Each structure stands twice: as C-alpha cells, then as structure tokens.
C-alpha cells in the first residue's frame, strides 16, 4: 500500500532523547525532500517526567501535527500506556524490549540500547529507532545513511557506528515482517528550504528587519529567543543581554527605543503581565518597541510547558487607559519569520509598541519552509527628526518625526499627558489632541494582508495564530466533502485589515477555532460587529483535525437552522 503521509510519536521520559530522535527524523526526511513538521511537548521537570514529540512526514506541505499515529515509539511502559490508544488501526508500536512486552498485537519489541552498543556507539539508539522506522514505511536506508554522513562529516568512526545502528534497527524490524505501507518517494519542493523552529524563525525575522537591541528574562517557551539573540546579536551597534526581570526588560527597551535603536524582547504570559505599565508608557510617549509573547497556558504560572491561545485579550489591552496595541499573530513557522519582520517594521513606522503573539506549539515546532529571500525583505526605520533645536516633538494630530538623543530637537519623552514639547499638562484640549494623535497612527498599520477562499459563502471559518494548520486541514477536507464554507485568515489581528473586517461583517456566521476557554477572538470580532462564535479547546494541546471538522459542521448546521444567535 502506498502512503503519502507518515506520523510517528516518540514517547518516553525527559532525558531519553525523545526530542532529538523526532528532530533527527525530521531533519533526515526533509533533507531528501519530504515535507516535515514536529510537534513537541515538554515535561514539567528538568530530569525525567513523561514527554513526547511527534514527527509528521509527507510528500506535500504539512499543516498539522497529525491526528492519528502510524507508529508509536514507546521508550518505557508508561509511554505505551499513555499513548497506545492514539495509534491508528493497522499502526505499529515499537517499544523498547527492555521493558515487559505489552500484550498487544501491534507491538514490536526492539532492544534499542543493546543494538546501539552492538553498533559500537551507545549513543546511537536514535539511529536504531530510525532504521526500524525506515523498514516500517519501506524508505530506502540510503536516505538516512546520507544524512549520517553529512551530520557527522569527518568523524569516520561515528559515521560507521551510526550507519551500523541504522542497519541493525532496520534488520530487527524486518524480522517482524510487519510493514505499514510504502511511503511514496519525496517530491522535492521547489527552491531552497530551511528546517527551522518558530522561535528561530521569528528571531530571524526581527534580525532581517534590522533589530539592534534585545534584552530579556528567561521564561518558557520564549527562552530560546533570548539564547539565540545573545549568541547572534552582539556586535557593532548591536547588543543582546539577559536582565533581571521583565520590568527591566520593558524599561530597557523603552530606554533603547528612545535612544534610536530597534528594540525587542520575547516573553510569555507572566512576563507580559509585568510589562503592562511599560507598554502603556511606550504608547503614550511614542517609543517604538516590540514585545513577543510566546503564549503558554495561563493565568499566573499556569501551564508553562503547554500550548494555549489565551493571551489575546491581554495583548490587545496589555495596559490600563485608552490604548490599543497593534497585535500580529503568526499561524505557521513560515509566518513567524514574516510576522517578525512586519512587527518590527510596524513599531518603527507608527512609533509605538507592537505585540507579536506566538505560542508554545509554534515555538518548538521544527518545519521545512521555503528559504526567505532577504533581498525582498523590506526593513523600515522610524522617521528621525533632523532639523534644529526648539522642535515640538508631539505637535499635531498625527505621526511626526522623532528626535534621537545626541541629535537636534531635545524634548522630554513623557509618560504623563503632555503638550507639544513633552511637558506635563492637564488641559482637556491637550488630552483630546494627544489621544486622537495616538489613535490616528494606527491607520498607518492597515496594510495587513489577508487570505480569502470562497468569499461568497455566508458562513466563514476564520481561526487565528497556531490553530491555522489544523483549521486549514479541516477546511480543505470539508470543501472536498462538499461543504459550503468561506475561509478567511490574517496574522494582523489589530488593526484588522479594514477590507477583511468589511467582509466579515457581511457574514451570517464566522466560526473561530481557538485554544482558550472564553473564545477571546470571537468576542473581539463581536465587539467589531461581526457575528462570530468560537470553537474552543483548553487542554494544553492543539486541535485534532477530525474533531475540529465535526464541530465546524455542527456550528454551521446550527447557524443554518437559526440556532446560533451570534
């Protein structure tokens, strides 16, 4: 049987190399031209604790992690117990024969460690597993041998041991005579590809847009951005640094943004809460800066290692007072890159804070994406004041050039309501002018692109952020099955592209899959006079496509039957 899609989950205990195995498989498969995506969960403890990572390999672009497992690799008995029900019928469970064999006809025991030792490299158990997987889907071992050659180039002993491990795994699985199909050969995507994670992609996006300054405080799942920047953003005119709290982070960005730098930080929900007052200051004092919130489950310490989309309302209104903060939420790893570019550009263009909302499931997802052409990336910079002294920095009702310390036009960047030169005032007409001035600048950000498919349909599906993958997959299936439904999508959540909003307002119902309890995006849409209803999930895990389809159909039917009051 030919198959075009292959989902394997590695489950075990933290420290057993579950993530490494999944990523290695993804890397090997993508290097020969398959499309891949990983989905990682993390244990909540440093050593041990149950964890799993999933790799999906396909001959066409991968949208979601995959509902059902073709293969479960169970590294211990708990992993078998916790995950075997998600293995599809006809699937296989590869388990470590070190532990007691489950009474399950789908199970094949493999002595992972013993074979690795036999291969001459105790740390090659992952290769034993990958060899066994290659047999199960009838993939040529040569694919993986090439990968090993490249990965360990120059270290002949290690190459030999890893190749031996691949073969031993392959042979061991062959003995079982079980196969689950033949994965079609890859259709190499056109153009150069990257294998990159969401956190890395948004870091690269910001760097491509000219980021100068980064300060941050460690917090899951945003820490990799800090580490990436500390490694890669230190040089002439650039600096990245770990500070002592998120309050220091936001204050540091304010100081650096004021001093002319393109500044950003990345945090998660708890850090966003601490930055609240500083984000408001950036809005009122008109200081460009970018805050990335890689969402995890909340509130408070919440679910630090699980995915959720529950910070949307906090991102739209992170600060007290009359503020409306621009929000961009990428939905795929590729969009993380372009979202990073756009978010930094927006902050420079309108001279104020921008929040980029990512999430755990994107942050750690490794995926192949077309390599961005940096020649095409536009990097915007704020308009700098170059005149003489005596400038009125906050004059007028619209954006005006920003003076930079060291240059002309000294003023006071003020977090209290102020007059044109930045001095504190309480005059009613000034508060009116300044408030309107600040809101008028949002008009500069109405150029966001959006997606539309079957726009004539009265019922639409419109998800946001990382639920995009499962939602498109569900949408495409539903259309193939003959359902009538429009598709809309944008990563620009505030301001929403006005043309998009116009269209949404004309719909009978906009169905919003999102990972939170309250239906935060649909409630935002309703506040903008769109008849929207959410499909919510708050398990700490992404949507499964099958489940999503059922719920979309049910909501659409209820709308047609007049049962949705939206």
């Amino acid at each position, binding site marked *: 049987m030919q198959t075009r899609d292959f989902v394997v989950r590695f489950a075990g205990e933290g420290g057993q190399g579950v993530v490494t195995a999944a990523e290695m498989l993804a890397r090997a498969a993508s290097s020969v031209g398959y499309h891949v995506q990983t989905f990682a969960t993390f244990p909540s403890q440093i050593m041990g604790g149950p964890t799993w990572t999933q790799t999906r390999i396909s001959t066409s672009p991968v949208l979601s992690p995959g509902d059902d497992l073709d293969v479960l690799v169970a590294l211990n008995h708990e992993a078998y117990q916790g995950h075997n029900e998600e293995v599809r019928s006809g699937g296989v469970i590869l388990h470590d024969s070190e532990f007691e064999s489950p009474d399950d006809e789908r199970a094949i025991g493999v002595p992972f460690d013993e074979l690795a030792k036999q291969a001459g490299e105790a740390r090659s158990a992952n290769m034993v597993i990958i060899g066994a997987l290659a047999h199960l889907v009838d993939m040529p071992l040569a694919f993986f041998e090439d990968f090993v050659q490249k990965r360990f180039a120059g270290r002949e002993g290690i190459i030999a041991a890893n190749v031996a491990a691949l073969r031993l795994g392959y042979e061991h699985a062959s003995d079982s005579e079980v196969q689950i199909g033949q994965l079609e050969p890859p259709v190499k995507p056109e153009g150069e590809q990257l294998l990159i994670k969401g956190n890395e992609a948004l870091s690269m996006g910001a760097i491509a847009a000219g980021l100068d300054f980064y300060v941050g405080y460690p917090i899951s799942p945003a820490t990799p951005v800090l580490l990436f920047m500390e490694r890669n953003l230190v040089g002439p005119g650039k600096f990245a640094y770990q500070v002592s709290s998120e309050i*220091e982070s936001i*204050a*540091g960005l304010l100081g650096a943004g004021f001093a002319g730098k393109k500044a950003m930080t990345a945090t998660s929900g708890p850090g966003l809460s601490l930055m609240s007052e500083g984000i*408001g200051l950036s809005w009122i004092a008109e200081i460009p800066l970018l805050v990335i919130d890689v969402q995890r489950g909340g509130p408070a310490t919440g679910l630090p290692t699980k995915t959720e989309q529950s910070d949307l309302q906090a991102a739209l209104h992170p600060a007290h007072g009359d503020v409306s903060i621009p929000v961009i939420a990428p939905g795929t790893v590729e969009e993380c890159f372009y979202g990073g570019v756009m978010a930094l550009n927006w902050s420079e263009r309108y001279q104020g804070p921008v929040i980029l909302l990512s999430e755990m499931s994107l942050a750690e997802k490794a995926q192949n994406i077309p390599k961005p052409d*940096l020649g095409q990336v536009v990097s915007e910079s704020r308009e700098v004041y170059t005149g003489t002294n005596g400038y009125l920095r906050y004059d007028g009702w619209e954006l005006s050039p920003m003076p930079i310390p060291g240059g002309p036009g000294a003023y*006071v960047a003020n977090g209290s309501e102020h007059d044109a030169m930045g001095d504190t005032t309480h005059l009613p007409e000034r508060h009116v002018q300044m408030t309107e001035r600040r809101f008028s600048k949002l008009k500069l950000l109405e150029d966001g692109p959006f997606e539309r498919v079957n726009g004539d349909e009265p019922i639409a599906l419109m998800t946001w952020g990382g639920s995009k993958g499962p939602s498109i997959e569900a949408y495409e299936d539903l259309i193939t099955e003959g359902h009538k439904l429009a598709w809309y999508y944008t990563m620009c959540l505030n301001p929403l592209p006005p043309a998009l909003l116009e269209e949404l307002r004309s719909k009978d119902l906009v169905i919003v899959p999102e990972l939170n309890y309250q239906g935060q995006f649909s409630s935002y849409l309703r506040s903008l006079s769109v008849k929207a209803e959410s499909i919510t999930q708050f398990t700490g895990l992404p949507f499964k496509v099958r489940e999503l389809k059922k719920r979309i159909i049910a909501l659409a039917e209820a709308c047609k039957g007049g049962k949705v009051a939206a």
Partner: protein
Amino acid sequence: MTTKNPEYDFKWCPGCGDFGVRRALEFAMAERIQKTGSAMESNVVVAGIGCSGNLVHLLEGPQPFGFHGIHGRSLPIAMGTKMARPDLNVVVVAGDGDFLSIGGEHIGPQAARNLNICAVVMDNGVYGLTKGQSSPTTELGTNTSSTPYGKIEESINPLELYLTLGVSFIASGFSGQPRPLAKLIAQGMDHPGFSIVHVQSPCTTYNDTYEIIKGNSKKGIEPSIWELPEDHDASDKQAAYGVVRSGGLPIGVVYQQEGRPTLDDRQADLREKAPLKSAQELLDAFQL
C-alpha cells in the same frame, strides 16, 4: 523647558529642596559641556515619578533630552539608553520613594553591572507628590498621612545600602548647597561606573527637615550636617562604612572605587568575542 511654558502645570512649593538640586544639576551639566566640548543634546535626564522627577521639565537654559517615564523605573530605562548608546551622558533624577521603594529592586543589578550613569536621589523622607505618606527613609514612629499612629518600620540607611550593593561611587549632599552639590554631581558624572549622589532635599510641606539639618542655635539644635574630613579615604570601603554609620548628614564623596570595568567596557569586550554574523549567514545555517 526652554522658556517658561504656560501649559506646564506643576509647581514646586516655596522652599522645596528640589530647586537647589535643579540648580546643581544645571551647573554640573554646563560644566561638563564646557569641559568635554559636547553638545547639551548628548545629555539625557531620566526622571522618576514624584515632585522630584519634575526637575526634568524645570531645567533652564539649553535643554538636554529627557525621559519622564513611570514610577520606580528610571534606573532600568536609563540602563536601556546607556547600553544602547554608551556615547550619551545619562543622569537619573528620582525621589526616595521612587528610587528606594518601588524601584529598589533595580539598584543591585546596576551596581553589579557597574552601569556608567549618575543617579541623583532627592531624599525628603516622604512621598511628596502623593501628599505626605511615609517613605523608606521616614523615621520609625513618625506620624505621616499614611502612618496615623506612627510608622512601624525602621527607616533604611540608603548610603549603607549602596555600599553593600557594590555601587562604585557614592556621594552625599544637601540641596541647600547648590555649588558644592554641583561638584559632587560632576564628580559622579565623571566617574566611570555607577554613581549615586544621595541628596537631602527637604519637603517644606510634608517633612521640613531644614532645622534638623542646619540646626538652630536659638533653640539649641545642633546642625546634623557635617563635612567629610579632608583625610577621609574614599577608596577605603571600611572607612566609608564608618562614615555612613556615624549618623547625621555627611557631605562629600563617601566612597569611590577606581579602576573597575564598567558595563560599557564589558559590552565592548563581548563584542570582540562574538563576531556578528550577517542576517544572511544566520539564515543560511538553517538551510537543508
């Protein structure tokens, strides 16, 4: 403000110590410009929230850049500016509440970094702007608007705190002596590293300490202000502890640690160690 700005609607009370601190800062910045030949626009004054922070709007003459942000965060804002632009002269002006209470968490990290800025703290032992509540430097037992039956926490000794946190330049001054205070601020700005000039700046409305500081011979009140002796060795930390524990209001440079690298220096070292890759090189590393 370059000229008197009719829209600006904040005024210090008559006799407020902050007038003197403003004068001192004007002197110190003017002297610096003259000495270094730099432009006034290369100075940045980051202000806290309080009566004291309003100093940034009340400076006369050529104007520096200013940042009047949020309560307690003047130090980390100044950190961002200085870290991003080591070429700028960055000065913080803040009250005792702003600097030592809500913003207290930011002193230690700047001391550890030896951030090359100068903080001028205007200590009036009270929250002036919010009308007379107790602050970290209000004495134990004092009745204030927020301690109607007397303050039940002990006052802190800011100079001792700075010493213990490792601040590399610590001076103590009085708002009633703008010229000598200007000298201390100028020394603080010249000091390579984190300098704090802690100033007694009395609040005539809620905590008038002029008499305690200057004394009153008619009432038989001895002045609490005293000059550090010529032979005080500011490089000797033990001697500095001796000074800050001996009570009263010492005037002078209490402590100065010389030769310690600043954050600017260490940033420069790091830049040498970490050759910056181009965006293209970084992106290429992810290529399949």
